[in-house]
């Protein structure tokens, strides 16, 4: 089954680190990178997803358009079906974790700095999800 992988992070270095890790983990060889959530949403609406699940690695802390904003907008645009989200954040705040779990399509939570295994485990969760 084919699927797409997006990485949304404001910070360029973070994007590079996560892209390399995703490739190394074998989850996807060409994940698409976005410097902010709005670009990602634009891409999603221009390339409708039919029977091709999308996995998004989403950073929370983005000053202009935060991860929450992204999740909210995703919900209201009704393009959330088949979109699975793994939160990637440097926050150790439980509050954030609690808030994220309220969104149905958030399937996992990865702390920065992460290891290769963290990404593999989260990727496996996604694969299990879409194989059902």
């Amino acid at each position, binding site marked *: 089954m084919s699927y797409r992988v997006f990485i949304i992070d404001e*910070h360029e*270095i*973070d994007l*590079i*680190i*996560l892209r*390399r*890790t995703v490739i*190394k983990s074998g989850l996807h060889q060409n994940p698409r990178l976005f410097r902010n959530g709005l670009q990602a949403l634009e891409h999603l609406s221009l390339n409708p997803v039919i029977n091709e699940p999308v996995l998004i690695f989403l950073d*929370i*802390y983005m000053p202009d358009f935060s991860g929450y904003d992204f999740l909210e907008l995703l919900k209201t645009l009704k393009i959330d079906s088949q979109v699975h989200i793994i939160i990637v*954040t*440097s*926050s*150790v*705040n439980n*509050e*954030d974790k609690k808030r994220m779990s309220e969104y149905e399509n958030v399937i996992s939570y990865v*702390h*920065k*700095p*992460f*290891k*290769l295994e963290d990404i593999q485990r989260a990727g496996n969760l996604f694969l299990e999800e879409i194989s059902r």
Partner: protein
Amino acid sequence: MEKIKSYRYLRIFYRFPVISGLLGFITALFLGQLITLKEYQIFLDQEEDEVISYSSLVEDKISTVLNSSYSAAAILGFLHERVDFEREFDIIGEEILQRLPYIDAVQWNEEGVIKYVYPMEGNAASIGFDVLNDTITHKNIEAYLAIEKDELYFAGPFELKQGGMGIVGRLPINKDGNFWAFSVVIIRLETFFELLDYDPKANNRFYVQFSKTNPSTGIEEFFLPEEKGYDGFHYVKKINDGNWTLSIQLKQSEALKRVLPPLILRFLVSLIIGIALYYLAKLPSILQKEVSRKSKALRRTIRRFNMASEAISEAVWEWDFSKNKIYRSRNFVSLFGYKLSFFKMNQQMFENLIHPDDRVQTSARFKEFLEGNDKFWQQEFRFLKENGDYAHVLDKGILQRNKNGSPRKFFGAIQDITLLKERELQLVKLNQKLDLRAKELQLAFLQLEDSEKRYRELFELSPLPMWVYDLDTLKFLDVNNAAINSYGFTREEFLAKTIEEIRPIEEIPVLEKELEKRKNLKGFIFSGNFRHKRKNGELIEVEISSNKIILKGAPAVLVLAVDVTLRNKYIAAIEVQNTKLKEIAWIQSHVVRAPLARLVGLVDLLEMEKIENPDRSVASFDELFTYIRSSANELDAVIKEIIEKTERIELD
């Protein structure tokens, strides 16, 4: 014997005072009124005498007139043979009238016919009048009566031939044994009454009346105005010289009037005598009654005394010093057991029965008392009873002294106080016990007072506002200084308020809810936070703790009110700070950790690359190194920024 008899009468007199008084009254009345009666009779006799004496005066005057008339008539009769009347009748007449002033006129009548008259003036009409043949005015009847009597006889009063009323006295003159002439005297009625000195119109004491039975008609004629209704003595006298009746009556008898005052006086005197006798008779019976009443009371008193002296626990005694005799009441027997011999005991024998320890002192005190001036005696001592026991006794007495101070009579009573003494002893013991108990109690009380004081001080000096309010009326019952300072009301203002009055209006429903809760709960309650109002209107937040207590018997509530206004302000401030700190923490977790995480991620990548391609040159990792430096710089900038922010919070 005589004495006994009079005593008996006296007894009767004293026994029936009413009858005695009545009898005295009747007797006095009888005697008195007898005198009055006699007096009355005397007065009547006096009046009679007066009437008679007045009558005789009148009679005297009449007889004077009659005598004068007789003299005149006799002189004429004597002279007619010696004097020639034809010539000298006027002279003789004048002479007679001059000497006899009561006679108004003289006449000479021969064989019934009037021949001469003096004075002629006023009488001339009578000349030639034939009296004996006068059947018209019936003067003949009395003329013949005079002839028949052969003496001076007065006819009339009647209407005279010559006019006017008068009486006519005729003296028959005989010649050769036969009637021949009349010697006549005329007295006019006015002259007659003048002579009598009686004026019927005047207010006389006596009523005088002249009357005569008219010979021709047989009717009694009155010469003076007839008056009736008089009640005095009536005197009637016949005067034969003219067949007249002289009647004199006292107009008003004054006998009754005169005896009336003495009659009343005597009646009153009798009454007084009767009453006096009544009281005199009653006096002994009054006295006797008084005596019997007093003696009855005395008997009662004696009986009462005897009963009382037996009933009381005291033995009564009386010492008569003049007879040197001591009387002791029967109670001595019941108190001390001695038989009757005890009553005959003298003072010395009595003193010998006193306990040896008390005897000397008692005797000495008694001797001193008798020789002194005191009136009251009192002494306690032990006294030997017949059964050998000693009784505690209290001897009390009152001494009467003679003028020189020596004892005369001594009255008193002796009382067995043995039981009393025992009780006294018990009482003393009990008292000691009670004293001890009282001291304990006092100590306890002092401790209590001390603790109360301590609690009081705790309330008063507490730095936290406290008060007590009445659970029913909600009135403040007490407040401490801290409350006064905190709320700004004086103690007096507080005590005039209810707890509702230190709250803003919107808090009242809250208070009511709390009070409802308070009523059903006991003991200490932490009520929570409320808003109160100070005197200056400022609202404060207080934390209330309260406890139900009983103050002066009524349910009350002790309240501790902590002003938490400031504390709450601090909390609010802290909360603001907290939010800021949270923000910092959030920033820290994202911003600070982000470059750090990046560094770690880059280092991890570097390691992985190295493991995959161990032969790669260091230069081929330049890209990664650039990223690492950039992230490290970033981290440094972030840390600087956080330090700055924290400093800003502190400055706030």
